[in-house]
């Protein structure tokens, strides 16, 4: 194991940012910490790095089987990449990258030509070799973040920690850098943890995704697992878009808004409040009622730009429903705004109120 987080808690004043969190990251793995703001993901990353200390006596951090809980950030050999780059403004790109090598004690510091070679090697790695003499102010956001990454890699870190590295970039650059980071990681195989609140980013880049919420870990799994087999309502709601229908569960039946479906989960003796979550692409639209469970709704808005046609509908009781259909299906139905149609969910996840919360 490269990173072992064991029973870590962290309070800021009275606010509990992390509540007894444990997490293992295997060597060479790229793990994404995904969660809403304030869920504790950045705090966890900063505690792993040593930039933040966990609560006294709350647990341990192990990097490569070595207890580093009380070690200073500078001696943990972690590469940390900040959301706002945190480059040294008064230094050239070259000096920024060389910094980690130049501040080493004289005995451990590489010779000047070795540093130069190393920096150029890293600049080639991040494909910005031609920017060595520029200052950070002369670079674009994407370039700055790649330099920040090169700077973090210069110290040959045992683990690489990225705190919302693409958060400050525009959508297109973000996507490019995401792919690039994925490729870079498969070349270097350095154990990496990436914090993000962008579920698409987490699902695309990471080997495993850790969903955090209110200082706890909700689910750990591969992108497929968390997307298709969410452990609970929060995960399903947070990862991907959903339609939510409020209702109740009685025995083996679930009554959710306009829907009545079979309920196959754990039986409850009494009627329980419940919610049905349906992905927009797990819904079909018919022009006629066909006997399958479904309900009537009116088309309010159609957006055909994109790989799927996005359709907003409202049920008779006024609840909004969001549906995504393939273009061919949309064409075949001949939908127009104002038309009344029948909506059939193909797959519905029912979550009954949990005693835990």
């Amino acid at each position, binding site marked *: 194991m490269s990173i072992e987080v064991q029973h870590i808690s962290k309070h800021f004043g009275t606010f509990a940012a992390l509540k007894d969190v444990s997490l293992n990251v295997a060597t060479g793995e790229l793990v994404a910490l995904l969660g809403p703001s304030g869920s504790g993901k950045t705090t966890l990353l900063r505690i792993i790095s040593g930039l933040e200390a966990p609560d006294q006596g709350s647990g341990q951090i192990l990097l490569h089987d070595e207890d580093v809980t009380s070690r*200073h*950030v500078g001696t943990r050999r972690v590469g940390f990449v*900040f959301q706002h780059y*945190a480059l040294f403004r*008064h230094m050239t790109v070259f000096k920024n990258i060389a910094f980690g090598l130049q*501040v*080493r004690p004289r005995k451990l510091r590489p010779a000047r030509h070795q540093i130069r070679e190393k920096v150029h090697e890293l600049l080639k790695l991040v494909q910005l070799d031609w920017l060595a003499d520029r200052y950070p102010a002369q670079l674009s956001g994407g370039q700055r973040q790649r330099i920040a990454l090169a700077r973090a890699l210069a110290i040959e870190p045992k683990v690489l920690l990225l705190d919302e590295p693409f958060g400050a970039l525009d959508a297109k650059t973000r996507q490019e850098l995401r792919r690039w980071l994925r490729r870079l990681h498969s070349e270097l195989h350095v154990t990496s943890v990436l914090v993000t609140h962008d579920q698409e980013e987490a699902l695309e880049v990471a080997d495993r995704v850790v969903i955090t919420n209110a200082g706890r870990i909700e689910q750990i799994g591969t992108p497929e697992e968390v997307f298709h087999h969410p452990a609970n309502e929060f995960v399903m709601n947070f990862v991907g878009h959903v339609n939510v229908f409020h209702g109740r569960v009685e025995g083996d039946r679930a009554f959710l808004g306009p829907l009545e479906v079979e309920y196959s989960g754990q039986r409850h003796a009494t009627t329980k409040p419940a919610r049905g979550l349906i992905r927009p692409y797990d819904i079909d639209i018919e022009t006629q009622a066909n006997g399958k469970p479904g309900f009537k709704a009116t088309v309010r808005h159609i957006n055909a730009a994109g790989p799927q046609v996005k359709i907003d509908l409202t049920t008779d009781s006024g609840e909004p429903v969001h549906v995504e259909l393939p273009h061919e299906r949309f064409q075949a139905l001949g939908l127009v705004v104002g038309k009344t149609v029948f909506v059939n969910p193909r797959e519905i996840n029912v979550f009954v109120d949990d005693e835990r919360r």
Partner: protein
Amino acid sequence: MKICFKQRSILPGFGLALGFTLVYLSLIALIPLLGLFLRTAELTWGQFWATVTDMRVLAAYRLSLGASLIAATINLLFGATVAWVLVRYRFPGRRLVDALIDLPFALPTAVAGISLTAIYAETGWIGRYLEPLNIKVAFAPLGVVVALTFIGLPFVVRTLQPVLEDLDPEVEEAAASLGARRGQTVRRVILPELWPVLMTGFALAFARALGEYGSIVFISGNMPMRTEIVPLLIVMKLEQFDYAGATAIAVVMLSMSFILLLAINLLQWWSGQRHCVMQP
């Protein structure tokens, strides 16, 4: 050929604002300064030279410039520390300390001079402990330095504070995560960022110290050749209705300060040049 000073902007006001600035500066600063030079021009070169190279005057120049430089340097070091503490740490009484900084601004300098003299005199609160150590503050050049340090403090603190507020702690964290020890972070990361504003604070404290009169005349004792400052000599000349002599001393003082401030500005420009580059 028409030279274009400015880009066309949809927001008006450049012409008016610049015109106002020039008129205002002329009235407040330029014309009085010009008068100074004109008054000096009443003297012949011989007279001018004799006035400004008088032994007593030279000694005063030495004291004024020397004490001001020392005081500004002390303020640079300790003012930077005070500003750092005020910006970075939260402690009870922080606001009170913050308000105290402005006191030298508000206090009539004569009052400051008298109280400093009282404290540092041989029988004063602090002076009585310095006396056995053979350190003389009041009525000695050291007293001048102490008074100038007192009045110059707010300049460094107040120029530095807003810049420190903007200084992102993430940059320090980045340095620490790369293995830099605290001293290295301060020397290689923080100080270069603060260098231009430290210079500004230094220049302001220095300029303020050069012009100081009120507090010094009490604490220095005004001993010819030892503790006389330039403004004092100017006042003395004025009292003897030797206006031309007074302005001659002032002109030399002014030129020296101007050259020093210009040098500081150039230094600042040179250090700013290296990283404040516009986006291409």
